[in-house]
């Protein structure tokens, strides 16, 4: 990526990182954090009064459209959405067309990702074509720099295959990431099973369909000693099981999607298909448990599970609509609104996921001189109304459409470059000379109307 605007100083904010919380200014020069006192008066100043200044957010779970689903999202549009949402690094899910199941596709996705304003890490699939039949060349993927492999969807159903994947991947340093959902028990489900599925006349998936596979997968981790990461856990039972497993010495990591910190099954009363999600929106008690699990650190990461769709995939009856919601531009505000302390939330949205992705130790990634300058400035009190049409993502499906959220990203700095300022995309056209950025990113920037004048 190209250099850079001149030196920056982010002044007057509350700095929160793995080292703690303090008042202070943050200086940035040549792509790294510097002592603000060393910069002269020519440094560009960002006023962070009343704001939180933290290390850039890291999303462990986003679907970025490319390759294969460019109608719904591109690297350029997803990258814009990411930085507007405060994310400086995003892990791209591998269920693309073609799926990321060889080193060649990894390289292709990396090349495409140059059009993104954020850093894109590439996940691979566990099995060929993510079909859950035979193992993908995991050694080749690891050699290509892949650290996370996942089949997406509802996770590997076959316990023998999962056992083999956990065993085989151990010397490769790979983490097997997977959602927990027993497809058979959840057959036909459109939403969470409970009071609301009974009332709305929709087939439900019980919480137990998730928890059975959490228990099963933990057993396989105990058996194999492999590394497992649970994607988008959603039930109070799952959080309790993972917490108890950690106490008994079975090490796994786990994430929750931001929408599961705020919306519940009752929010489906109007059959809003943008709220049809996998896993489904759960009961209000599960939402409360998710918030507690993130605040208490039993859950490592809050993710967006950003899943962009074109309108036609959602403008169907509830049972025919595709699941998923965009989330890059709302996740932080949604999570902040849940009442989790900012320091706890930022641990789950920045340095802990960075650590899980192998991007560096939380302390060395903190906002101290010498660290890579991935920085976000957040006004935790600024409200905005979620509206997909006004978002940078091409996806038109926000589960929060029309809702007022609180907590806005004022500025985002990626590797020392300002990409968001005053809560808008910064005009990169005048700042960068890279062909790629000019051709792809800025073209869309202008189209989205969010470029600063």
């Amino acid at each position: 990526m190209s250099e850079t605007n001149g030196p920056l100083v982010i002044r007057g904010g509350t700095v929160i990182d793995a080292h703690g919380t303090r008042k202070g200014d943050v200086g940035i020069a040549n792509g790294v954090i510097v002592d603000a006192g060393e910069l002269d008066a020519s440094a560009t100043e960002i006023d962070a009064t009343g704001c939180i200044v933290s290390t850039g957010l890291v999303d462990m779970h986003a679907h970025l459209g490319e390759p294969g689903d460019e109608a719904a999202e591109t690297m350029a549009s997803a990258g814009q959405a990411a930085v507007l949402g405060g994310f400086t690094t995003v892990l791209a899910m591998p269920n693309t067309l073609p799926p990321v199941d060889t080193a060649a596709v990894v390289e292709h996705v990396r090349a495409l990702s140059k059009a993104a304003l954020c850093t894109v890490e590439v996940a691979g699939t566990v099995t060929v074509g993510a079909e859950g039949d035979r193992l993908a060349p995991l050694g080749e993927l690891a050699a290509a720099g892949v650290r996370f492999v996942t089949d997406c969807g509802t996770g590997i159903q076959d316990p023998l295959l999962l056992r083999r994947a956990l065993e085989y991947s151990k010397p490769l340093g790979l983490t097997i990431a997977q959602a927990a959902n027993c497809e058979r028990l959840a057959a036909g489900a459109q939403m969470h099973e409970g009071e609301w599925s009974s009332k709305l006349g929709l087939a439900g998936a019980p919480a137990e369909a998730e928890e059975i596979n959490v228990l099963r997968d933990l057993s396989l981790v105990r058996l194999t000693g492999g590394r497992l990461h649970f994607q988008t856990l959603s039930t109070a039972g799952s959080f309790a099981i993972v917490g108890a497993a950690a106490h008994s010495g079975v090490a796994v990591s786990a994430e929750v999607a931001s929408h599961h910190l705020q919306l519940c099954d009752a929010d489906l009363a109007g059959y809003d298909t943008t709220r049809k999600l996998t896993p489904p929106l759960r009961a209000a008690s599960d939402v409360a448990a998710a918030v507690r699990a993130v605040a208490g650190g039993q859950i490592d990461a809050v993710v967006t599970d950003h899943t962009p769709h074109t309108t036609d995939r959602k403008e169907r009856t509830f049972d025919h609509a595709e699941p998923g919601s965009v989330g890059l531009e709302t996740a932080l505000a949604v999570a902040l609104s849940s009442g989790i302390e900012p320091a706890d939330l930022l641990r789950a949205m920045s340095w802990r996921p960075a650590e899980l992705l192998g991007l560096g130790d939380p302390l060395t990634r903190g906002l101290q001189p010498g660290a890579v300058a991935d920085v976000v400035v957040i006004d935790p009190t600024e409200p905005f109304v979620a509206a997909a049409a006004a978002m940078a993502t091409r996806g038109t499906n926000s589960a929060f459409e029309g809702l007022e959220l609180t907590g806005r990203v004022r500025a985002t700095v990626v590797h020392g470059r300002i990409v968001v300022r005053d809560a808008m995309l910064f005009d990169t056209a005048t700042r960068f000379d890279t062909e790629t950025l000019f051709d792809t990113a800025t073209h869309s920037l202008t189209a989205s109307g969010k470029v600063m004048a």
Partner: protein
Amino acid sequence: MKHLLSIDELSADELRELLRMTPSFAEVASRRIAKVPALRGLTVATLFYEDSTRTRLSFEVAAKRLSADTLNVAVKSSSVNKGESLRDTAETIEAMGIDAVVMRHASSGAPWQLTKWVGASVINAGDGWHQHPTQALLDCFTLQQQFGDLDSRHIVMVGDIKHSRVARSDVEAFTKLGATVTLVAPPTLLPPATNTWPVTISHDLDAALIDADAVYLLRMQRERQREALVPDMREYTALYGLTAQRASRLSTSVPIMHPGPMNRGVEIAADVPDLDQVVVVDQVRNGVAIRMAVLFMLLGSGGSAALPVLEAVVDDPDQQVDESAVAV
């Protein structure tokens, strides 16, 4: 009120009001020339994604008796299976300038989605497992004909509650009118959270029938066997069917109801439908009057405020319609 999507949306007062005005419409239906000009110039479309000739005809007859123009939007089931955009169909309807759409759909919630894209009134004629409000209204009306007020009456509903929009609508309507409801079904055919419903649950049909004031049988589909919900139809009939023996123990004053079409020999023994206390034909007849009342409520001159005017209109067949009262 613009749409009729679920019983939930009607207050108890609105429900009673609809039932109170229904006899006037029933009277219209009994006339030699069974037609009043209440909805003249308005167009009612039926949009049935699921075959149901009896419900569609009932709405069409109701609309015609109120002088509305009717048209049937034919929907190919093949395109529905591919998940064709509901919005495309809605926009087509919108472009035709239709005043009310009567919608039947196999997917729960489809009528709610339709309201987002059409300006017309939407009447839910059955959505998935969810709601069938006009069925509940005609069931309430039929029970009122049998024993007056439903307050404190005990209604026993038997069968596949889980997949039944009739049960969901009827439970809400019956309890709104003060009745107590017992649902009798094997646990596999009950929704997962009936503990949050204002009903009593039973798995013993004989015990539930002892103090029943009315018995409501639901259609049992044979495909439920394949889903491991019931072992077989013979056992279902033995445990949950209205056998001749069970029917013989009922007082002759206890009405037996069914939303149709009946599976004789499954939920109801072959000869039971011929008993005098079976009111299935009344249900069908009352369906037309109820649907006239609903159409008038939604499309007439502004909802329940206009009801006294309606009575003046329909009580005197010779009287010219007061155009100001029915203008939309």
